[in-house]
Every structure is written in structure tokens, then in C-alpha cells.
């Protein structure tokens, strides 16, 4: 075997022996790294959990959405003053704008629904078939209402999983008939579960139906064609701003606004808002991890401190080793390896502990806490970086000792 490899192995074993020789001190030093890595791992997991929750909550909203809603004044928390009206023909106009792939005029209200002896108050959304895209609804079983349902104002609904639980106790609702008021509706489809929304509301307590059906069978026609808002989906994020301007032009025309009149509608760019919310989540993760990182820095200072003390204490040993033939590289390696070993052990234990505590906390609080390979990479990187950073100065100090002086040291 290569002589250098044999020496390297022997030096590594010397490093391990001296860690074992000072068990308590090595343990306490390792504890600093364990706590540091554990804290970082937990904070990264917490940050990811928060981000996952945000993403899940935002899943109720389709990608690249523009939302058109009436301009109205609010005073003292009460809706007042004049309020413009958004109509389905506005939605029809928007449909012709370039890069718009889905438009859904929305009517939202709360209604009591009933199935046999069960009844439940829920949100009712009436829209076009496009709402599947703009509202990011996916079908679990059955099907969504289609154009034919729209044209015929057929009494069909698609329901969320909460409704399935409340009215059907989890049984397959497709084909069953529920009642809204006195009107019977056939359940055509069951939506996939979405979970909580941004405001904490249950996104699965929802009943969807064609807007035509809603008009004819539920709402009546006090203000014909009135909707609360229109959701418009753009094909690509790049075209959002352009589409927004186009919609503004088209709506002013459709609504016959005079050139000097202000817009009587508002166009919200949801993507912008979502990005802001997501970036808040990201900043939160980074902030949490950074704070935990401070404890890691403190831990690594602990290693450096221990190594410096160790070098001072072992001045004579270093002198002896040099006198009987240790090269500077062997001394450097021995002390560097000691520091790397301590930080490696600390990082691994900290990682396992952090993942474990994260999972336990997640289980207790009822959140799915992700375990990412990033965490493992992070722990290994920390082990090496901290070990080398904390060990290099003490190791250099050991290497520079003059053997004559070191042998004289008492």
C-alpha cells in the first residue's frame, strides 16, 4: 500500500483516539454542532411546510389569472356609494382578447342544500365551463358540467368533497339528486380535495353549476346578466400585462366609457399577488434558517475554541511527535481531522435529530413536514465547511510550533 495512505490512516486514527480521550469535552463541543444543525434542519422543514401550505391554499386559483371586478366605494367598512355592474357580455368581450384561454364570469352566493334528511349551508358558484381552469378544479369522479348543460340550463351540479362528507357521508354522490331550495339538481361530478384556502375557508365546501342554470332555476333575473366578477386566464405569464391592457381597452369600449371617464372596473393581476405571497413564504423560510444558522456559527466557534485549547494543552505532544518524525502535514491533518470528525458527527446526529423532531412536531400538529434531500446535503456541507473552518487556524498553529520550544513546554 502507498506509504502516504498508510500514514493518512494512522493519522486519522490518532485524531479519533484524541477525541475519545477527552470524551466530555468532545461531547460538549459536538453538542454545539448538533444543536445548530438540528435547528437549521427544523427551521428549513418549518419553512418548507409553510410554503407547501401556502401553495396548497393558493391551489384554488388557476395560473396566470386576471380578475375583473366592479369598482365600488367602501366607507366605514360598509359598502356604499355607487357600484358599477359587471355583466356576462363583458366576459364575452374579454374572450376575444389575444392570449386569453379561459374566461369565467362568476356568481357566488350561499345556499342551503339538502339530500334526503341531511342539509348543509355552502358556497354556490355559478359560472361557465371555463371555471374548471380558472378555479383550478379537478374532477375526482363523474364529470364537469359541459357546454350542453350550459346551453340547456340543465339542473346539474359538481360538488366538493366536504359536501360529499356532509350529505353523503363519503359515499359516491355521482348521479344522486340534491335539492337547493325546492329545485332538484343531479350531481354530475365530485371535485378533488383542495384543502384550506388563503383566508382559512374550506375550499371543498362548494357547489358548482352552470351560470345559465343558476339564472333560470335559482336567482331569477332582477339585474339580467349581472356577475360578481370575471376570471380570465392568460396562456403564459409573459403575456399577462399585455392582456391586462387589452382587456382594459375592450371593456372601456363594451361599457361605452367616455375617453375622459375613469375605469368603472378593476383588473387585478393575481399572479403578481400570488408571487408576493409566495415570496413572503420564501423570505420567511430563509429568515428562519438564517436565525438557526446563527446557532451553527456559535457551534463552530465552540469547535474552534476547543481545538485552540487542545493545541495549547498538547504543545508537548506536538513537540514529541515532530521530534520523532511527524511532518508538518501529518500534524496539520491530525488536528484538522479532529475538528472535521467532531463537526461531522455533530452534523449527522443533528440532522437525524432535526428530521425526527420535525416529523414528531408535524404529526402532533397535523401537518405533513417534508424531508428533503437538501437537508442531507446541507448537513454534509456544514460538516465539512464548519470542520475545516474551525480547525484550520488551530491546526496551523500546531503545525507552526517549533519542536525545540514545544518539547520544553511544561
Amino acid at each position, binding site marked *: 500500500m502507498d506509504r502516504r495512505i498508510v500514514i493518512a490512516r494512522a493519522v486519522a486514527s*490518532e485524531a479519533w483516539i484524541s477525541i475519545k480521550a477527552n470524551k466530555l469535552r468532545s461531547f460538549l463541543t459536538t453538542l454545539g454542532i448538533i444543536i445548530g444543525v438540528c435547528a437549521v434542519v427544523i427551521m428549513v422543514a418549518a419553512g418548507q411546510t409553510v410554503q407547501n401550505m401556502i401553495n396548497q391554499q393558493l391551489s384554488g386559483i388557476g395560473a396566470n389569472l386576471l380578475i375583473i371586478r366592479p369598482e365600488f366605494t367602501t366607507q366605514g367598512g360598509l359598502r356604499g356609494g355607487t357600484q358599477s355592474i359587471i355583466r356576462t357580455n363583458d366576459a364575452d368581450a374579454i374572450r376575444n382578447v389575444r392570449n386569453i384561454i379561459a374566461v369565467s364570469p362568476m356568481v357566488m352566493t350561499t345556499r342551503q342544500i339538502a339530500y334526503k334528511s341531511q342539509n348543509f349551508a355552502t358556497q354556490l358558484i355559478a359560472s361557465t365551463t371555463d371555471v374548471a381552469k380558472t378555479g383550478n378544479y379537478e374532477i375526482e369522479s363523474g364529470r364537469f358540467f359541459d357546454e350542453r348543460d350550459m346551453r340547456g340550463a340543465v339542473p346539474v351540479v359538481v360538488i366538493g368533497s366536504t359536501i360529499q362528507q356532509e350529505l353523503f357521508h363519503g359515499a359516491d354522490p355521482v348521479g344522486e339528486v340534491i335539492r337547493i331550495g325546492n329545485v332538484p339538481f343531479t350531481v354530475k361530478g365530485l371535485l378533488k380535495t383542495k384543502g384550506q384556502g388563503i383566508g382559512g375557508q374550506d375550499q371543498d365546501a362548494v357547489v358548482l353549476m352552470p351560470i345559465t342554470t343558476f339564472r333560470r332555476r335559482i336567482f331569477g333575473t332582477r339585474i339580467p346578466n349581472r356577475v360578481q366578477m370575471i376570471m380570465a386566464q392568460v396562456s403564459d405569464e409573459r403575456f399577462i400585462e399585455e392582456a391586462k391592457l387589452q382587456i382594459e381597452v375592450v371593456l372601456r369600449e363594451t361599457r361605452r366609457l367616455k375617453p375622459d371617464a375613469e375605469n368603472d372596473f378593476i383588473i387585478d393581476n393575481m399572479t403578481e399577488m400570488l408571487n408576493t405571497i409566495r415570496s413572503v413564504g420564501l423570505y420567511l423560510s430563509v429568515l428562519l434558517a438564517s436565525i438557526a444558522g446563527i446557532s451553527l456559527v456559535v457551534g463552530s466557534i465552540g469547535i474552534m475554541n476547543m481545538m485552540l485549547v487542545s493545541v495549547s494543552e498538547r504543545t508537548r505532544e506536538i513537540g514529541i*511527535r515532530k*521530534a520523532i518524525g511527524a511532518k508538518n502535514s501529518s500534524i496539520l491533518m491530525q488536528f484538522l481531522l479532529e475538528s472535521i470528525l467532531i463537526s461531522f458527527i455533530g452534523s449527522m446526529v443533528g440532522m437525524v435529530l432535526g428530521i425526527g423532531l420535525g416529523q414528531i412536531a408535524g404529526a402532533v400538529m397535523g401537518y405533513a413536514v417534508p424531508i428533503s434531500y437538501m437537508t442531507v446535503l446541507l448537513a454534509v456541507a456544514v460538516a465539512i465547511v464548519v470542520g475545516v473552518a474551525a480547525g484550520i487556524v488551530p491546526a496551523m498553529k500546531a503545525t507552526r510550533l517549533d519542536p525545540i520550544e514545544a518539547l520544553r513546554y511544561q
Partner: protein
Amino acid sequence: MSAKLPPVIKIASLHKTYYMDGGQNYPVLHGLDLKIEAGEFVAIMGPSGSGKSTLMNILGCLDKPTRGEYYIDGVLVSKMNQDELADVRNQKIGFVFQGFNLLMQRSIIDNTKIPMMYLGLTGAEQDERAMKALAHVKLTGFETRLPTQISGGMQQRVAIARALVNSPSLLLADEPTGNLDSKTSDEVMKIFTDLNREGKTVVVITHEPDVARYAKRLVYIKDGLIKYDGDVKKFKAGANG
């Protein structure tokens, strides 16, 4: 007839001056010439401040001369770099110190193995040689003890075993009996005598005439110069110092 071996030690006009921070110079050795052949047993004596410790550090390759040349086994070592000197210390020189200089947290056998570790010998070779060296100094059975669990004389014998394991050209002992009582001193010096009889070159630095008497040849240093170099029995301190 085999060709004559080069001397184990050859120094020529060796000077050592210490340069202090304040710009002062302290010349310690003023041009020494010395040749020690293989198989010799030499005592180097001198009063405090004579420069014998400085000479010992240079002979042991722990320090470099300011001027002059130093050869071990015919190889010029006075111009070597740190790593080359470490190899020379490891392979050519067996150190025995006054304070034993064992690693106190390591067993007797581990202490004996350290020079072999830096030589790059495998575990099996290390074990074999260490056991042999410990047997040589009559410490068989004490392998797993710690230095604190044996007497000073035994510790010094461990140090001698450690000095022997890499089969060095030169055994260099610095006041090897300085920390021992007279009976133990005798035992330790007898080991050196035996080793010398087996062919080892031994150099002992001491200020004790009783210790020097075990050697055949005496080199007496005073004020950085060799004042006497000859038969140990013919030396009279007063006459030559």
C-alpha cells in the same frame, strides 16, 4: 573487503548564532569539527551555557546551523528543508530525552509504535517491531499499561524502545538519567552500553561525569568550542576546562 562506511556524524566548522528581536546576536557555537564513526559510544559534556544543548538540537536535526556543514551517514542534512529533516529524525535518529517525553494518554506499546506510524509501516509490522523492541528493554508484559502506571526507569526504557524501532543510525540521548535515581540510572546506562556492544552508535549529552564514564570517547565543550575530544578515562575536567 567492504568499502569503509562514511562516519555516522560529520560536522565541519559548525556555527550557530541566535538572532534576537532587538537586533542583538548571540553566537553560541564557534566552528565545531566532529566526526563520529559507526559503533562509537560518545559522551558530550560541558557546563551550562557551553552550547551543548544547541549542539544536541543540531545533531538531532531539530535545529539548523547558521554556518558549516552537517552530514549523517555521508548525507548533507544541514541544508535540508523541514519535511526532509522530519524524515531524517524519523529514520536516522533515535531520541531519548531527559523527561522521557512519552504520550501520557497512550499505552506503552502505542508509544513505541509512533515513529513507525510516521514511517508508514502497516499495523502487523508495527506490532512485531514494537514487541521486539520492548523485549529488548525488558518490558514484555507491560505493553498495555499507561506511562503513569510504571516507574521512571521503565518509562525511560519505553523511550529507548521507541528510539530503536526504526533502526536508526544514531541513538541520541539528552541527559537520559537526569530524572532518575542512581540505581535506575545505572540500569538505563547499561542498556545503552549493551546496545553499543550490539553495534549501535550512541551519543549521550550529559553534565554528569558518572554518566559520561559509560562512554568510550568524550567530547567536552565550553564556550562554544570543543576543548577536549578523546578517551573518556584520560579526561580531567579541571585541566581541560
